[in-house]
């Protein structure tokens, strides 16, 4: 094993503008820095419209870079895509309705024409949907569909998992169950995760570090280390360290509000 000093994500001074309908431009990101180490779990927290999804899409190579430096696994986002090193889970599962659960999870292997078909079954087991392998997505609950999306994002063994409010559309019980499943998977896969959310407790429970953003224009307001030991569990949500970290994140979010007002 070689020590890998190459961070999973290195974003420096990234600026991004959207063209508005009225001809003016909206500054979505303004001089944003972000680093995710190899195997590190980093959350980005911020209010709606703070540009955190834009940031994630830039890292994913789904948006062309306009200014600043976006390095993913030591190369460009496009190179990371071509190396099949990225996995993506969005708020909506984006499953193919004509494929059953197993075939949906297999999709990346079909596209890249590589990988281990055995892993499809193993992942279905890991996220607890093996018994639904032959079901079509339309017959599943929202939580089940999002588990399928998570398995699909991992099946080709990516080195960086990008998650854009992956549990945002789920009910509270499904959210809590999936957080723990994600933690369990992350402990085993040891891949880097960039996790975008607006839920502070979720970010603290899952992450090594929490990046707090403010909105319009999107800027990084604070980067807060989470001192909780691994492996994490729900029980840690009632510890003083958890409360202190969550309070620090909320304070950083509020300071953004004050600045804007």
């Amino acid at each position, binding site marked *: 094993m070689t020590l890998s000093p190459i961070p999973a994500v290195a974003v420096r001074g990234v600026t991004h503008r959207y063209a508005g309908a009225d001809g003016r431009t909206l500054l979505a990101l303004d001089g944003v820095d972000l680093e995710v180490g190899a195997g590190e779990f980093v959350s980005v927290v911020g209010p709606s419209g703070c540009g955190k999804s834009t940031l994630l899409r830039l890292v*994913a*190579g*789904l948006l062309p870079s306009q200014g600043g430096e976006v390095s993913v696994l030591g190369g460009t986002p*496009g190179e990371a*895509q*071509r190396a*099949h090193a*990225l*996995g*993506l889970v*969005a*708020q*909506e*599962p*984006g*499953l*193919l*309705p*004509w494929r059953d659960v197993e075939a949906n999870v297999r*999709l*990346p292997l*079909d*596209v*890249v024409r590589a990988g281990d078909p055995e892993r499809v079954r193993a992942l279905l087991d890991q996220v607890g949907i093996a018994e639904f392998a032959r079901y*079509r997505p*339309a*017959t599943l609950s929202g939580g089940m569909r999002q588990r399928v*999306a998570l398995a*699909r*994002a991992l099946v*080709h063994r990516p080195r960086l998992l*990008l998650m854009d409010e992956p549990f945002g559309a789920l009910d509270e019980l499904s959210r809590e169950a999936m957080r723990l499943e994600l933690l369990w998977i992350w402990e085993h896969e040891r891949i880097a995760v960039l996790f975008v959310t607006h839920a502070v407790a979720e970010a603290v429970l899952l992450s090594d570090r929490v990046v707090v953003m403010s909105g319009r224009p999107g800027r990084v307001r604070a980067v807060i280390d989470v001192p909780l030991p691994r492996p994490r569990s729900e029980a840690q949500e009632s510890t003083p360290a958890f409360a202190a970290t969550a309070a620090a994140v909320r304070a950083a979010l509020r300071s953004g509000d004050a600045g804007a007002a």
Partner: protein
Amino acid sequence: MNGPASSTSPASEIGVPRTPLAATVLPPVVALSAILLLWEAYVRLRDVKGYLLPPPSDVFRALVEEPGRYTSAAATSLTAAVGGLVVASVIAFGLAVLMAHSRLLERAIYPPALLVKVTPIVALYPLLAIWFGFGIGPKVAIAALITFFPMLVNAAVGLRSVDPQALDALRVLAASRWEVFRRLRFPSSLPYVFAALRISVPLSLVGAVVAEFLSGSSGMGQLILIANGAFDTPALFAAVFVLAALGVSLTGLVGYVERRVLGWHVSTGA
């Protein structure tokens, strides 16, 4: 084994119970029978002249006395209609693929296509006859021109109607355009393609028959012209019935294939 009326359809994948066959087939059969009976009774009781409105029994007799006359004409018209439909669908789908991949090409292709749609196709017949002769050629061309636009527009919309999250999932894998097309765009477009076919099938028959009216070449249109000239109203009605049956059968065939291919799609669940 169950009786034919309550044949057990395989439980659909979503588990929605199918409506019993009797409940779907019986009402239209009863309604059609009632119309024919009323028609028959009206003609006989009011003693309506046969050349104005023949009783259904006379129409039926015209059909069974010379079945070959109708089947060969039907085969001729059907060939032209389906030929035109296939030619138009293939070309329209190909153009729709180009339109779905380039807004520039979409802007280039759409206006001429719209021009084809708004032009009364019948007016093109003399030109088509010059180009394609007097056989099946202009009939196929008319059927194709009539069915072209619905397929073009539906396929173009369908090919663009992809789930953006599914598209992102493919894009982060650096999937090629071809991979995106065959894994996502093409299957996503199928519900729209079948919707276009359901519109186009009856139109293709219209195109073939109109072309036969204009050219006098063989087929159901010619059969109707001849029956009309001979004041053979029962044969005229028989021809119309045969055309109606063709339309129903073709539409039914499209529906059958659609249910087989699109079992996953919500519109086929009901």
